């Protein structure tokens, strides 16, 4: 019998395969077998384990009680959880590149430096679980915060970068978090409008399937392994990558090289090419929409509400910006606008366990040194401020908390 089209295949199934898929029950049975098959594949062919220690930042955290939990930006598993140790005081610290210290000689992390000043809380060694997402935007922070709260840490600290907090031009960057964060976000009906806007049906389906089927959950690892195997099989020798300094692509080729949609909007509209590099962050900060016209308001409000509802001690603070940029009155006014707007949203979502430090770190401490508007070279003043804020907040929630920071370093 010649197989020319799908009807021929159907006839073949009728004759040779007991009319498979020919009746509703048969279709259902087949679908069940597909699910069982996916389950068995997950058992028989486990995906290669993600080694957190190989993560870019974790190289710098060896021998410390701190780990960056965030996986590759394309990995739909989002992050990897560590087994909770009840003998440690776990702090989940969420933020973007602003929680780094970018001193070229001594790079570091704000949370780790806080841990150094505050090695024990309530007699337990402090453990830092970092959710460090480069170029994270407000919805990314929301997704990571939801996950962090789900792991029931002892304290959640959230770094809010004022440059992007209310910037309507970029509300989400780490879309791979969608499936991973879904179980944490869907339980609150207040989040549903946001989920309907930013999630796709496949995000939801894959998230649900990932909860039960390892072969679906670990698809990124399988795909990576498969790609590597296929690449080994091809006889084609790839050309060497273009030498740096070669002709810069233009037009569509240039757009094709852009990593983020934001690059396009900035290049062609929001921060046009003629804005010099040092002015780009201040220009982005000034784009903040604080009149209620941005979706960020809803995201921030839901995020603070979720933190308060969790009853887990939580601190949200606005990261510091380079004080020298505030000499421009327009930039200073924009930062005030952002702070006041956050203050109003925080007041609407006030909770006993939640402290929102709505003033930027720049307003609270002196002596900060920056590489650019957002990234600190020396984080010590900010670390001191945060350490003391954490202790006072924990003591306010529970006066029996033992939180004694190590003494500050003596000023030179």
């Amino acid at each position, binding site marked *: 019998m010649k197989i020319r089209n799908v009807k021929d295949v159907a006839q073949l199934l009728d004759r040779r395969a007991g009319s498979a898929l020919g009746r509703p029950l048969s279709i259902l049975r087949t679908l069940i077998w597909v699910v069982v098959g996916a389950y068995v594949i997950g058992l028989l062919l486990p995906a290669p384990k993600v080694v957190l220690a190989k993560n870019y930042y974790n190289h710098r955290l060896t021998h410390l009680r701190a780990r960056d939990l965030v996986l590759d930006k394309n990995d739909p598993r989002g992050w990897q959880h560590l087994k909770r140790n009840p003998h440690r005081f776990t702090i989940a610290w969420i933020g973007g590149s602003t929680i780094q210290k970018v001193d070229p000689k001594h790079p570091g992390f704000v949370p780790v430096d806080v841990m150094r000043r505050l090695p024990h809380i309530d007699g337990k060694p402090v453990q830092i679980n970092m959710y460090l997402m480069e170029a994270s935007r407000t919805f990314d922070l929301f997704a990571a915060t939801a996950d962090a709260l789900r792991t029931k840490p002892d304290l959640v600290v959230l770094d809010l970068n004022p440059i992007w907090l209310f910037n309507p031009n970029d*509300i989400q960057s780490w879309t791979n978090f969608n499936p991973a964060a879904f179980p944490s976000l869907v339980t609150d009906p207040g989040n549903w409008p946001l989920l309907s806007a930013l999630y796709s049906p496949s995000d939801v*389906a894959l998230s649900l399937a990932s909860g039960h089927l390892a072969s679906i959950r670990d698809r990124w690892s399988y795909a990576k392994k498969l790609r590597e195997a296929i690449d080994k099989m091809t006889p*084609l020798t*790839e050309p060497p990558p273009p030498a740096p300094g070669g002709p810069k692509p233009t037009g569509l080729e240039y757009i094709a090289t852009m990593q983020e949609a934001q690059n396009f909007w900035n290049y062609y509209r929001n921060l046009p090419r003629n804005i010099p590099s040092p002015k780009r962050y201040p220009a982005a900060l000034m784009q903040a929409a604080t009149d209620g016209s941005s979706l960020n308001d809803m995201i921030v409000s839901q995020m603070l509400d979720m933190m308060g509802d969790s009853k887990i001690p939580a601190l949200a603070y606005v990261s510091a910006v380079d004080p020298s940029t505030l000499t421009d009155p327009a930039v200073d006014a924009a930062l005030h606008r952002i702070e006041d707007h956050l203050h109003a949203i925080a007041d609407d979502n006030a909770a006993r366990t939640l402290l929102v430090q709505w003033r930027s770190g720049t307003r609270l401490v002196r002596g900060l040194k920056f590489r650019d508007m957002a990234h600190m070279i020396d984080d010590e003043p900010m670390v001191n401020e945060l350490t003391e804020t954490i202790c006072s907040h924990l003591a306010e929630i529970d006066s029996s908390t033992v939180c004694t920071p190590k003494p500050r370093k003596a000023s030179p």
Partner: protein
Amino acid sequence: MLNFDSFEFFANLFVVLAVLVPVYRLVTNVVARRILLGLVGVYLLYLIAPRLALFYLAFWFVVGLLQWVVGRTAEKRFGTLIFAAASVAVLAPMVTWKIWTETFVIDFNLWGNSAARTLMGPWGDVDLARDIILPLGLSFSTFRAFDLIIKTYLGALDPIRADEVFFYGFFPPVQLIGPVIQYTEIRDAVRTKRTRVTDDLREGLLLVVSGLFKIFVVSYPLQSSSDVFGALDQNSLGVLWLELVLFAFYFFFNFAGYSDLAIGASRLLGFDIGRNFDWPYTKTNPQSFWNAWHISLTGFFRRNVFVPFGGMRERSQYRAMVLTIMAIAMWHDISIPLLVFGLYHAAGLVGHRYLLTKRQPPADEPLFRRVAKAGALFAFVDLSLPLMVVKANQIVPVYSHLIGVS
């Protein structure tokens, strides 16, 4: 950026279908059915980027108006003029995109985003988080719209109502990569209550499985063959030819796989859409190859270029053939490589037709002869595929390398 993963569209479509198929089957009101399917189409475009959904809403609104005006004026003295103006209006976005690609893509995204943010308020912020996109599906929408305008003008179809335009314009499975359906292909199925639901589900699922197999099992491992055109200096002649052959299979199975997904999804909803590929690499002459390759598109050009230009008449058949294949080539891209591609295949088609007039092949050819002919035709087609990928200044280097002169 600018590389949208078509599978993402289908992944969303199939998840939606899990809910849509039973709901659609339960709804008996025809208008409600049309609106339901149209809304799903809009939603799927919104998921790619809200600006894309808005663009197509505007596009099909204009098409709906134009087909109504064309239908009403077809018999009038100035009817032809109106038809011509409507045709220009419908083709304009696609032609602009093909000629001024860079400007069109940039402005399409910038203007579309501004419109999304103006119309959607805070929710317009979502558009900025979506990737920068080419006007995905514009060719297929243009062909569907143009087909509707022509049929209305010729009186083959009465002007259709707004809900019908919405349904036809946003019929979910064909939004992104075709096939180029005609309104008559889906018109009746939405009206009738299907009695053989299980057959629809069975055939739809089989087509979906076939599509997934073609995409992931056959085509995905061959994907790296498309890098061959950028790696000419690094590879031997044998490897270049091997990769060119593999590229031909990658190209076919990838496209045919996605067509199967679209046709299978339509079938799950109870719509019978014709196949888009009929094993073209097994054909033995250029004419049957083009009758088996991207059938819905060649059908569109046959109806709207080949026949009107006298393809069915002996005297003008060669001219019609050349014009048709050139139109197909230029649709891919208005560029020198595609011009060469068109001329190359036009030569094949004209040569084949000319030989047919001289000597008809025997009705029952032996197998080895058919295999030899299919092999020769595959080589003929495969040799033209680089022209679909390379730029004008790469034509000579690519073909020089393929013949070992570099």
